[in-house]
Structure formats: C-alpha cells, structure tokens
C-alpha cells in the first residue's frame, strides 16, 4: 500500500461524466515495484493483484483518438452494482454499473439513482457487488453520442473502500455467496430446486413465450445458463454442498434466470467454468420446438447463488466437433465490418454472431480478450487460408486487458435491410466471405454508384446481394430459435466445410496493382538469380525478351484465384479503356469489343489474362503485407503504384464480361407517374470534370440550356407500335387533350431507349412555333444542380471583376455578363461567368486598380513615370532614393507567406503577406520583396487560380481526391481557411530551383496535408517557370523583413534588396523601340 504518499484527490462519477475525450487515470502516478501481498487463499484478497499481462506493442495504427492520461493522481470511488434497468439493452447483458456512493446503495439496481456509468472490471469478485470500491487505475470512454448514454468505465485495478480501516476477516467457507440480495430463509416447497455444478455456458438475454395458461401476459425475459451438475442423491436435497471431491459433474441442467434475475447475466458470464450452487429454483417444462421439451429450472424471488472460490477443476471438453467449446485468449489486431469480424493475434479470425453477441464496449484493437465456447475451423478459400473462430449463442467473450491504444467503439447499425438478413442466414464460412465481399464492394463502388444500388435497401437487393446469391446459390441455413439452439447444444455442422474453392476474392484494384507489382518483382528476382529461365517460368507464359528491351508476362486467371469486378470507362487522359473501381483502375484490352456498345454498370470477369509489361531490370523487394490477405482487404490499405515503368493490364474476351448490375433505367416513378416532359437542349455544362470521381462528387454543376418549343408525352413502357400511323391514330385523344391546334401543328411519334427502359411517346408543340414547326423564339436558362456549395465560387467573382477584368471595366464601360445566376436582388457571378466589354471609358480608372494595363494608373503616378529602365548590374542606382524599373524574370521564390484575408466581406480570401523572389534580368541577380497584389502578379496567382485542381494537382485515385473538385484558387482558399497562414521556405541555393528544397509549414501547428504541400509547390514552381515582367522598385533596408524571421542563405545576403512597388506586363514592341533608341 502507498501509505506514505499523500492521499490523491477524490474523483466521482459526476467528474467522469464531464470528461469529453477518452481518458486514463490512476490513484498514483508512481508505479509500485512490488505487488502488495495479501492472503492469496481469500476470495476477497485486497488490493487486487496487478495484472500480469503487459501491454502489447502498438504496432498497428488505429486512426482513433488515443486515451489521454490525467496529469495528476486521482482516487476514483463509487459503488459497483448490477446494471440498472435504464441501461441500454446491450449493456444490461454485459456490463456492471458504477455509481457515486450513496448511503442507501445496495446491490439492487433500482437503488442506483446517483450518477452512474457502465463499467467493465478486471479481476472481478462477486463480493464487491453493492459495495464501495476504490478504483486505483482506470480508463474512461465517453459515449460517442453527445447528450446520450454516459460512457464506459474500465476498471484496471481496484480494492474495496472499507478495507482502508480494517483488514478483512479471512473466509474459510466452501461457498461464497454472491450478494444479489438475501432470500428468505424459510423453506418453500415450490422453490426447492437447486443446481450444483460447473457453469458451462450462458445464453444471451432472450424472450420466451409463456404457456397458454398465461396468455395475455408479456413474454418472459431472461437468459439460460447451462450447468454441468452432479446428479447424486445429496445434491437433490436442498442443502448446500460442503465439498466438491465427492461429486461428479456429469448431468446437464438448464437454469432460466428470468425477470429481475435476468440482470445477473454479467455475473453468470464471469462464473463460466466455475463451480456454483444455485438454490431457490422452480422446476418448469419448457417446450423446445414442436417435438422436444426440457425440464428447466427457473429462477424465483428466492433464488440465490453461491460459488466455490477454491475449486480448481475445469470443464470437460466435448468430443463432438459440431459442438462448441474451447477457450482462446489473444490480442485484438483488427476489428472490421462494424465489429462483426475481429482479428486476433494477426492469425485467427473471430466472427461474431450478430444476432446473439453484441460487441462489448471494450472490444477494441489492442485489447486482450478471452473467447469461450466457439468452433474453430480452417477455411480454405480459393485465394487464401484462414483460421476462423465461429461464435454461437453459447460463446462468451471477456476482456482480460483493456486497450489504451484505440478508443473506437464499434457500433452496429440496427437497420439491416435485406442484405443484413441475408448475411445472418448464412453459415459461418459463407458469412465471413460475404462480409469480406461487402467490404470489397463498398470500397470499390460506393463512390461510383449509390449506396442503395450497391448495398440494397429494406426491400430491394443491391448488386452485392445479387452477386453473392449467384455464388452461394441456396446454401442458406434454416434459422432455429435461440432456445432450441442453446438447449440442443448443436450449432450444426459446417456443411460447406472445405468446399470453398468457388468463393473468390473480388479484388480492389489498388490491391490488384500491388499484386501485379509483387508478381513482377518476384519474376525479375528469379530471372536475375538465374532460377527462372526464359519462357519456362512457373505459371507464366513469356513472350520472350532480351536483356536490353522490355518483356511481357501473361498470367492466366486460373493461376490467380481472384475475380475482377469493376466498371468500364474510357480514361480521359490516355483514351484507353479501363476497368475502374474507387480504389484504382487498370487498363483493359477487349479485342472483340463490339462498336457502340453501352458499358454502363458493373462487370464481373472470371476468365482473363493479366499482362505485366516492363523493362528487364533488377527491382528490390519492398516489405509490405500480402495484398490479397483478408486483413489487407478489410483495412483498405492505400496502395500506390510504385513501379512506374511497369505496365499492368488485363486482356478479356467480350463474352467474358458478365454484367452484374446496376441496370441503367429510368426510375419507375418517372415511367409511371410522369407523362409530360419539357425538352431542353443543353449547350454547355460546367465545370467540366474529366475525372471520374469528380463526377460523382457533390458540388454544384451548371448547365446552360435552350428550352425547345416542344413537350414530350409518353404513353407507357415497352408499348411499341408497328408503325407511326397506327401510333397516331390510337393516341389521338391524348394529343387532342393538349389542344386541337397543337395536334394539327405537330405530333411526331417517337420512342426513347434508355438502358433497359423503352418509352413511346409523341412530340407536341407548345405553341411557340410558327407554321411548319419553325421556332420563333428560344429561351435560354441556366440550370444549377445540387445547390448549396455555391459560396465556393465567389473567390473568382471578386478575382474576376477586380483583377482579371480590370482592362476596360470601370465607370462608363459597357459590359455584358454571361453565364450569371439570376438572384432576387441582382446577378451573382459564377466561376464560369465571363464578361464581354463592348466599350470603355478612359476618363476614370479607379485609383485602387492594380495591374494589367501598362497604360493604366501607374503611369499617371509621377514618381513611377520618372523611373528609368536599368539593369541589376548597374550598382549605382541602388543607392538612389528614386524608383527603379527592371525588366526581369523570377529565378526562384525564397519565401512565401500566405494569409487568410477577410478584407473583402464574408468570403475569406487569400493574401500574400510577404514573398521574397530572386530576380534575374540577364545582367545579375537581385533579391526582390513584395506583398499583396504585387506579389500575386509575380506569382501569377490569378493565372493559375482558375486552373482545374484535379488536372494540375493530379493525384492517384487512392489519395484524398475529395479536394479535387475545385480549382487551384479554391484549394488555396480552403487550405488557408484551415491553417490561417502558411509559410513556404526555399532551402536551396539560388538560382537553381527544386521542389525538394521547399519547406512548407502552417502557423496553426497543423500538419499540412500532402495535397496542400503539393499545391504550394505548384504555386512556387509556376512562378519560377514564367516569362518576363516589368517591376518598379525602391531600395529596401534588410532590417525591414526581419520581423518575418527570414533566414537568408549567404549568396543572398550579399545581394541587393529591393522592394517591389508595382508590377506590369511587358509590351515587347514599345520596349524594343525604347531600347533601339538607346542603342
């Protein structure tokens, strides 16, 4: 005991509830070197032993918030009790309750009125129930839902509070009573039933229908405990046993803990494998299915439980393989599919039965758990082999060591839909494969298609469901009731067994690319080591090669054990046909592709050839996980192509493409409810996105359209008529309804084929046409799709009107604004707006006008107009106070400080706070400094701001491409909104320039993303690779820039410093004339 240390401050549950992030705390921050000794024979030995298990090395990255330690020691105290009735259902079955102590605190859950939290406790002892405990070390995990249930307390180390004053009296009784409550001591004939034996398993809480006599009352709620009892005569009497040696535990009994006793489940789970004596039970007949019935012991108000702390026996193993058993303890190394799939020790896969085992709070990556009663089986899938621990209604999962490296709780969605029901109906091996398949399809297609199309809904199958049904056929198992499963102790044999060769992996394409690279590297490695001969490689067909040229390898799908599932698109960059999913893409060659073939939807390709083509070269192995492992697929590892010279593509015959959905069709509500459509002729869609992913992203899309003077009327689906004459006659009433004059003027029969939908209709004039259908007037409209993100375009609006369009725009100018949005109180410019200047007035250029025209405001400035062109080489000018003019180019950018600016209203803008340039005019180098508009011009910010970020900052599909729907300007503004200010420093030696020498940082101490880093490099590189400009400068005192902590390399310290006053473009003709005059 830490008697000499000052008592740490008390901490209450109410204090815990104020914590909003995962937190760890302890009563002492000094780790005691020797565990406190105490009576080891006593069930109430205090303090509890420190847990022997050491924390596993956190070699995995969980990506969640880690637990934050409290900086000072605290002593958390409270009452441990059974879960309260108000706890969430899943907590009632698994957790204890920990509440602030109150004078009336007792084991009864009803008394827990004070602040309480769910509680998991290591080294649990039933004697602690209803008593105040001191928690010496703990983790607290707040609820992920704000204003909802309180979080979970994980008790790592504890002791009873009352032992501070007095040591416990050693207990020598054979049985220790579990203090649920204290039953009457009077014998009651109706409750003489008892059970003495080993708890084998415990069911989940279930509801059981009552017999007909009790019709009208509610179903009973409780759980079953399977107890391996002794059947001797002494045990049949309702007297507590005194020893275990004279008993044989061979008879199976089921005890149904019902109503209030259903709250005892967390204790019964802890008692699995332990010897118990349950008294005060009633005997009842329980029907199991239609045929069987069991005599079951049912708890009553007088039921009491005692357990035998000294018993060291173990449960006998069941000899039948189809029955569950065993105990596996391991470290959780991965949790996937909303907690249904748990990886243990990087080796075994635990598949949690969704119906019966809610994942406990403490099931997190890094925790050590113990799994009891499962079926271990080896699954031989086509591409890999795994060890599966299949859980069932008898499985218990307990936590032996809490994880402090991961704080993510895995919550299941309650709303399953057809797919969830289908998954539940599958046998364990098929269910595991199905969860893997769902994970693959989600990764691959939820960005390209809607969730509903891929995963389905409550009443409609999605693509993954339909695909799985094709593979699994009718392998679904009939569902039994929980009671039947539990009592029969038969979870069914795994009929699929090893017949899993048909279950192939629908590989994500990033993993496929990586697999291709691995195959190539292995092949090159063998080749280099001489273990593989030309044309005789294992499983390869080789087209032959020479050491100086490239080689190609064709691998048959039969040797690969995975299928290709993806969409087919034409690459906007290369023009090649590609097999695409959200993780990546791969070129596809279809030699017999029919012309004009629609390729909408998702295709499965089972039979194909994978081609690897590249130069013969030695390539080093790089150490990464197997891209086909289940972990790699579940984890969605961000693979990037590393071997740039390796060309990977697949060769497929057209007949091998199997369309698996979704079908392209007009939604049914349009088919059947809508009969009349306006016709629009789209003339322009913007912004133009060439990126596939961009097309599926949210964001505004604009379309300019002309309303045609016709409407299209449909008569139904698939009702094709043999000829147009018959069509018109049979639908004359329809046409007539729209007006006799229209029917006369125009009724053109038409049919529309759209994917699987065929519609028939007629074109009807809307009356705006003249005789013979000539169009009198066209109405242009601008359509906006997916409104809501419009604000992002307003960056350009200002930039456009203030900067890009300063030539001519001003008072007195006549301009036409094209492609603007019509708002209630005016016009709103968009990124696609352009301004046509019809006439301009030279009278009043605005004073704040900055750039563009060399004839504009600055030449009216007397001081600047007196500046004479000169060279950096002419040292004499640098001492003059008058302005100087240079014709120069940016050699490199030394420093760039970008700020978020709010000068222009509600939309934040970009401001160049300072930029340092090395300028080159052909005579010498000079160091020029500028800010604001001058710096923007030298950086050419306006030129590049409107460029499409997806094209210019091109990233691989696996990257964070969500930022790429904007232009460079938008990305820049978004970055500054996040970081407020960023600084780029050039560590290279001028005038040479390399992006590798750029060091970008944020003042907000946030790490710049790689995309942001690339964006800044792009801006600097653009500035360094542009043409000449004219600059007006004045001499600069180097001390003026000291405030920016700019450390200049030695060559620059020796250079002259200039402050750039103005920047304007070069007029070559005028410059040439001036120079000619001088010469």
């Amino acid at each position, binding site marked *: 005991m830490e008697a000499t240390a000052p008592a740490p401050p008390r901490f209450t549950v109410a204090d815990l509830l104020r914590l909003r992030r995962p937190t760890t705390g302890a009563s002492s921050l000094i780790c005691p070197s020797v565990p406190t000794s105490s009576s080891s024979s006593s069930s109430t030995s205090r303090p509890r032993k420190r847990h022997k298990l050491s924390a596993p090395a956190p070699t995995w990255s969980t990506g969640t918030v880690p637990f934050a330690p409290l900086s000072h020691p605290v002593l958390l105290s409270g009452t441990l009790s059974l879960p309260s009735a108000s706890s969430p259902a899943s907590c009632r079955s698994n957790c204890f309750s920990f509440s602030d102590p109150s004078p009336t605190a007792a084991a009864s859950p009803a008394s827990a009125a004070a602040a309480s939290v769910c509680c998991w406790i290591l080294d649990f002892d039933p004697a602690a129930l209803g008593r105040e405990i001191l928690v010496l070390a703990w983790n607290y995990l707040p609820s992920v839902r704000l204003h909802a249930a309180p979080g979970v307390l994980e008790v790592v180390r504890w002791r009873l509070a009352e032992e501070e004053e007095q040591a416990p009296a050693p207990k020598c009784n054979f049985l220790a009573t579990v203090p649920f409550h204290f039953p009457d001591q009077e014998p009651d004939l109706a409750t003489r039933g008892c059970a003495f034996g080993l708890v084998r398993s415990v069911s989940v809480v279930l509801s059981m229908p009552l017999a007909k006599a009790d019709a009208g009352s509610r179903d009973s709620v409780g759980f079953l405990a399977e107890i391996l009892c002794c059947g001797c005569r002494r045990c049949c009497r309702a007297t507590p046993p005194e020893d275990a040696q004279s008993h044989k535990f061979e008879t199976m009994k089921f005890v149904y803990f019902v109503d209030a006793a259903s709250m005892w489940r967390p204790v019964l789970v802890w008692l699995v494998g332990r010897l118990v004596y349950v008294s005060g039970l009633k005997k009842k007949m329980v029907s199991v299915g239609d045929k069987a019935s069991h005599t079951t012991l049912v708890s009553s108000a007088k039921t009491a439980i005692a357990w035998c702390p000294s018993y060291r026996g173990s449960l006998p193993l069941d000899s039948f393989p189809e029955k569950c058993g065993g105990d596996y303890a391991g470290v959780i190394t991965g949790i996937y599919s909303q907690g249904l799939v748990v990886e243990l020790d990087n080796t075994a896969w635990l598949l949690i039965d969704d119906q019966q085992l809610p994942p406990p709070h403490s099931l997190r990556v890094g925790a050590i758990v113990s799994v009891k009663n499962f079926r271990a089986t080896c699954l031989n899938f086509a591409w890999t082999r795994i060890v599966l621990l299949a859980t069932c209604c008898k499985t218990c999962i307990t936590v032996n060591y809490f994880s402090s490296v991961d704080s993510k709780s895995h919550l299941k969605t309650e709303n399953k839909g057809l797919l969830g029901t289908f998954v539940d109906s599958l046998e364990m091996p098929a269910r595991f494969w199905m969860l893997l398949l769902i994970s693959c399809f989600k990764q691959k297609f939820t960005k390209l298609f809607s969730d509903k199309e891929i995963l389905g809904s409550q009443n409609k199958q999605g693509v993954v469901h339909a695909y799985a049904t094709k593979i699994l056929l009718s392998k679904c198992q009939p569902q039994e009731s929980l009671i039947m499963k539990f009592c029969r102790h038969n979870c069914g044999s795994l009929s699929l067994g090893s017949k899993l060769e048909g279950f192939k992996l629908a590989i994500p394409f990033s993993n496929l690319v990586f697999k291709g690279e691995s195959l190539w590297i292995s092949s090159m490695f063998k080749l280099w080591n001489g273990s593989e001969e030309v044309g005789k490689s294992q499983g390869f067909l080789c087209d032959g090669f020479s050491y100086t040229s490239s080689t190609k390898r064709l691998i048959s799908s039969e040797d690969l054990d995975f299928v290709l599932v993806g969409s087919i698109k034409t690459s906007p960059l290369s023009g090649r046909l590609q097999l695409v999913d959200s993780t990546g893409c791969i070129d596809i060659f279809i030699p017999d592709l029919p012309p004009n073939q629609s390729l909408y939807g998702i295709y499965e390709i089972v039979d194909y050839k994978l081609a690897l083509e590249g130069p013969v070269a030695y390539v080093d192995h790089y150490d990464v996980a197997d891209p086909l492992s289940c972990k790699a697929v579940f984890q969605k590892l961000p693979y*990037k192509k*590393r071997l*740039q010279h390796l060309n990977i593509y697949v060769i497929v015959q057209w007949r091998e493409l199997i369309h698996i959905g979704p079908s392209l069709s007009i939604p049914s509500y349009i088919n059947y409810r809508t009969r009349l459509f306006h016709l629009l002729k789209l003339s322009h869609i913007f912004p133009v996105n060439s990126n596939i992913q961009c097309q599926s992203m949210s964001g505004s899309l604009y379309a300019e359209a002309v309303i045609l003077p016709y409407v299209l009327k449909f008569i139904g689906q698939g009702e094709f008529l043999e000829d147009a004459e018959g069509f018109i006659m049979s639908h004359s009433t329809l046409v007539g309804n729209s007006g006799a004059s229209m029917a006369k003027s125009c009724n053109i029969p038409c049919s529309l084929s759209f994917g699987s939908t065929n519609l028939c209709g007629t074109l009807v004039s809307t009356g705006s046409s003249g005789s013979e259908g000539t169009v009198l007037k066209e109405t242009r409209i601008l359509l906006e799709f997916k409104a809501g993100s419009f604000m992002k375009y307003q960056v350009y609006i200002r930039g456009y009107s203030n900067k890009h369009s300063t030539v001519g725009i001003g008072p007195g100018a006549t301009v036409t604004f094209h492609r603007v949005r019509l708002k209630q109180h005016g016009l709103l410019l968009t990124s696609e707006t352009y301004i046509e200047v019809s006439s301009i007035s030279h009278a009043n250029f605005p004073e704040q006008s900055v750039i563009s025209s060399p004839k504009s405001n600055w030449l009216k400035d007397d001081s600047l107009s007196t500046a004479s062109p000169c*060279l950096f*080489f002419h*040292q004499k000018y640098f001492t003059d106070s008058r302005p100087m003019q240079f*014709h120069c*180019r940016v*050699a490199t950018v030394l420093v760039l400080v970008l700020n978020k600016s709010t000068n222009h209203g509600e939309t934040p803008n970009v401001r160049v706070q300072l930029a340092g340039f090395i300028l*080159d005019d*052909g*005579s*010498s*180098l000079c160091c020029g400094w500028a800010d604001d508009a001058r710096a923007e011009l030298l950086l050419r910010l306006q030129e590049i701001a409107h460029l499409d970020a997806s094209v*210019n*900052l*091109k*990233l*691989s599909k696996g*990257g964070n491409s969500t930022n790429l729907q904007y232009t460079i300007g938008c990305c820049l503004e978004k970055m500054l909104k996040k970081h407020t200010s960023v600084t780029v420093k050039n560590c290279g030696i*001028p*005038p040479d*320039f*390399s*992006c*590798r020498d750029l060091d970008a940082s944020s003042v907000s101490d946030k790490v710049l993303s*790689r*995309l942001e*880093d*690339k964006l800044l*490099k*792009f801006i600097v*590189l*653009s500035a*360094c*690779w*542009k*043409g000449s400009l004219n600059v007006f400068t004045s001499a600069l005192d180097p001390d003026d820039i000291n405030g920016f902590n700019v450390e200049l390399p030695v*060559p620059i310290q*020796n250079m*002259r410093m200039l402050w750039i006053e103005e920047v304007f473009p*070069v007029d*070559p*003709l005028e*410059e*040439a004339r001036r*120079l*000619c005059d*001088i*010469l």
Partner: protein
Amino acid sequence: MDHLLHLVHVKILAADLLSLTRQHTSPPAFLRCGRTVARAELVGIVVSRDLREKFLSFVIDDGTGCVPCILWLNHQYLNASTSSGSSEFDPTTEMALKMSEEVRVGTLLRVRGKIATYSGAIQITVRDVVVEKDLNSEVLHWLQCVSLAKECYDPPPPSAQGGT
C-alpha cells in the same frame, strides 16, 4: 559588387552561344570574353521536336543559328530514389510534361537553361520554356542581347583592366 555572371541566365543569340569557349573542366565551364557563363536564355522558333519517354529534345532557331535543347521529363525517378512515394506529391514532372506539350514546331519560344555539351556539341539543358505569342518578343530579345553584351557581358573584365 562582384559580378557573378555564371548565376545569371545570359540573354544570348545562338551564334554567340555556339561559339563560347569551352574549358575542359568537370563540369565544363564556358567563357565569354573571359567571364564564366553557365546559364543562357534564348528566343527562337522550334524547328524540330523529338519526344521520348524520359526527355523532350528540340532545336530552336533564332536566325543566327540552331541550338539543340533537352527538357528532362523524369524527375519522378530522382524523387523516388530520395524519398519513397514523394514523387506523386511533387508537381515538377507533371509541369514539365505540360511544358513539353507547349513545345511545338513553328512556335516562338523563350528558353532558359544551363549550358551543357553532348557529344562535343553545345546544348541547353532546359529549365523552363515560355511560348511567346507576341512576335515582337524576338526583336526585343535581339536588342537586349546587344544591349547587355555592350553594357555587361563584353566589356573587359576588371582583371584585364588592371583591377580595382
């Protein structure tokens, strides 16, 4: 101030570039009127273009001569060898590729780069190219070459004047 001409992109005509005195050092140095020059800027019309996987080779003609130029397109290999995976986040290669697309036969081009030799002949290792849309740029460049030569490049070096 020392006049460090080798750090500057000297504005030069093809004939003058091709007649620079080469010093057989490693890396080779080039002399113009006793001054070391290492970088050059030329303006001329593209008269040939040869695009390969790793580089674009082209020739510009400014009326006084033809200068072979090479624009490297393989920066990603350099980056890949220094820090794994960084090439994807370095825009240099993409921008060099974009630049290479602007080099078309018949366009007026401003070229900046280092002076190098290949197979004994002088060429430019291109740093950047700018397409000049105003044909007067070529005239301006000629005049600048003359002006700079007169004022900056060709006066006798201080050492030849006896030093100061």
